């Protein structure tokens, strides 16, 4: 474990420490980009349909496995495979909504949440059945890290992840501010009864939101496949951290989520420099707790 900063450090040591921190911040941005995409859909569903979807992580896994199917098994070109995988995730999300959730939205919220637990377990079983219990890799080539002197920066593929994250933010922002459905979503999200009286078509909005949910989650899954491996349980692993991002950002506040995702990512990756590394995921949870205790409505709630 790295030593805590202290007054006796030499100039050289300080440089090294600063360089480490910069590096780890970069890693955090990569992690944050993936988290952002993973959490967006979760938040939108919570805002629109009013429940915390515990099965959300499985959509991410579906995205990753679809990519594996298209890129590794069918051997398609990377970009085409990615587009196809995203399409599959979007359709899967819509299907899941129509079959499992739409019929029960009129029930108590807690019932819906627990149904989502059941859906999560079910989907996890399906993924394990179809994809096998073993771990897989997309088998992408490895790009070397660019260096600035002795400071390591980042490799091309990880850079691409960040770019995807940033581009997504821009697209989502444009969607929310410029398109009709985006504005409708914001209206329903902040004041549902009022929006309804203004004639917002909930049905087509739901369809769109769930498709978007599938798109963002699927993309997050693909990115996870780029930086790591695929396993049947990968969905569950993501769910926990996503919930912390969602809470920190204020459940339902899209812009809050964007900031929160990077805060969580950077905290986890810089945190290992100062805290025992075995607790890295726990840092995400500590953030939630501290955040909620300080401001029970969520840091960025409207």
């Amino acid at each position, binding site marked *: *474990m*790295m030593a805590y900063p202290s007054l006796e450090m030499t100039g050289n040591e300080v440089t090294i420490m600063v360089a*480490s921190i910069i*590096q*780890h911040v970069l*890693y*955090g941005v*990569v*992690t944050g980009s*993936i*988290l952002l995409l993973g959490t967006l859909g979760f938040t939108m569903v919570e805002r629109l349909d009013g429940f915390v979807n515990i099965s959300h992580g499985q959509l991410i896994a579906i995205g990753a496995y679809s990519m594996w199917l298209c890129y590794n098994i069918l051997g398609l070109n990377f970009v085409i495979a990615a587009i196809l995988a995203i399409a599959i995730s979007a359709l899967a999300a819509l299907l899941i909504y129509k079959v499992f959730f739409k019929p029960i939205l009129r029930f108590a919220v807690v019932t819906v949440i627990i149904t989502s637990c059941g859906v999560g377990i079910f989907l996890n079983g399906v993924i*394990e059945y179809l994809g096998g*219990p*073993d*771990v*897989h*890799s997309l*088998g992408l*080539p*490895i*790009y*070397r*890290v660019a260096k600035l002197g002795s400071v*390591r920066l980042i*490799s091309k593929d*990880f850079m691409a992840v960040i770019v995807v994250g940033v581009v997504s933010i821009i697209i989502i922002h444009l969607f929310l501010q410029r398109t009709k459905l985006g504005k409708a979503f914001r209206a329903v999200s902040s004041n549902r009864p009022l929006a309804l009286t203004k004639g917002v078509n909930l049905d087509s909005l739901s369809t769109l939101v769930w498709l978007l949910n599938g798109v963002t989650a699927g993309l997050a899954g693909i990115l*996870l496949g780029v*930086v*790591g*491996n695929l*396993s049947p*349980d*990968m969905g*569950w*692993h*993501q769910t926990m*951290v996503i919930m912390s991002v969602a809470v920190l950002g204020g459940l339902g506040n899209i812009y809050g989520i964007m900031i929160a995702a990077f805060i969580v990512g950077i905290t*986890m*990756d*810089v945190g*290992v*420099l100062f805290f*025992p*590394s*075995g607790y*890295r*995921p726990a840092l995400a949870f500590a953030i939630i707790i501290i955040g909620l205790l300080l401001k029970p409505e969520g840091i960025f709630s409207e």
Partner: protein
Amino acid sequence: MSKKRTFLTKMLVVSLSFMLAVGVSASVSQAAEEEVRIGAIVALSGPLSPYGPDWLNAGELAIEDMNRMGGVFGRKVKLFVEDSETDTEEGIKAAKKLIPINKVIAIYGPTSGVVVGIMDYAEKNKVPVISGVSGSSRLDKTGGVYQYRTAPSDSYEGLVNGAFILEELGVREAALITQNDEGTLSVARGFKEAYEKQGGRIVEEVVVNAGQATYMSSVDLAFKSNPKVVLVAADMDVTSVIIREWRRADYGGKLVCGSDVSDSKQFVDLVGERNLEGVYYTFIASDPDTIPFQIFQAKFRNFTGRELGYGAANCYDAMAVFLLALEAAGEASGEAIAENMRKVANPPGVVVGTIEEGKAALMLGKEINYEGASGPVDFDEYGNVAGGYAKYVFDAEGKGVLVKYYPAGSLS
């Protein structure tokens, strides 16, 4: 509404009870008097799932070898298989089904966590447990009457890693990346003790958890002080990502991996065969020059269509010893197996290398000493065996090349 509710409720309860009853009666009614029943609790899903099928097949192969000669004292052996999901609680539930319901007289194949969980229960029911893959150092000083293993203890692996890094690689300062799981922690602990005792120094110790999205920051931390060697004690999934990170960031130095990885197709595919060059790994090795090993290797290839992987030889020997003990005992009970384990596995006796030879010798009334595919298989008082380890390095095509073989007991 309430009539519908009561009806639905009753339907639910009735159908569940029905399923349970059918299931239970189906398995109980299959009790054929002449079979000898052995239970297998194997990790078919969960983190160790890539190895599970090999372990299961090795055991099945041993049983087939014995059954081909008419079984044990004229009775065929039947294997009842349960998935432990690499999970202790599931393993316990599996044992609680296998022993009273399927009436197995012995249990084969669990990983360390499950062995620890079922040891007491199995012993109370006089059911011996043996495994070719339960290497945790927790089991070093337990068992011995109803608990055996043909897998060497992780503590020896630690010695081997320490000696290898110090003597073969000539490196006195190393860093350590460990996964926060019992098996990998025990390997890391063993290494630390051995390495420091022999004069080495651990400059950085990083702990990682399974299921993290990225491992970059942890790998970076390990290489912070530019160690020449980093020991990675993690499962296949995590190790593969760590190796890719190491390549990506071009840290230099060498990576030495534990025994969870090998040049199996699955691992090589995970990492990418061009990324493996120069990475060292450990293999629990039988001496590949012995005849029993070569015979088993060929048989396994024939039986499964695959090359044998980690643990297969040890598992085969585990089942073989059980079967030979049964044959020697002439009686189908767990107690009888337990009483005869050392008689068939340890000296003195005619040395036999295969089940066929062993059975033939026993039928001629001789005492035997089974020395099998994985090694001499001689149990100490705690049911442990000494084992050999080999250090391999990956070449440019992702194939393992032997660097050094440490036979059982060569380091102390």
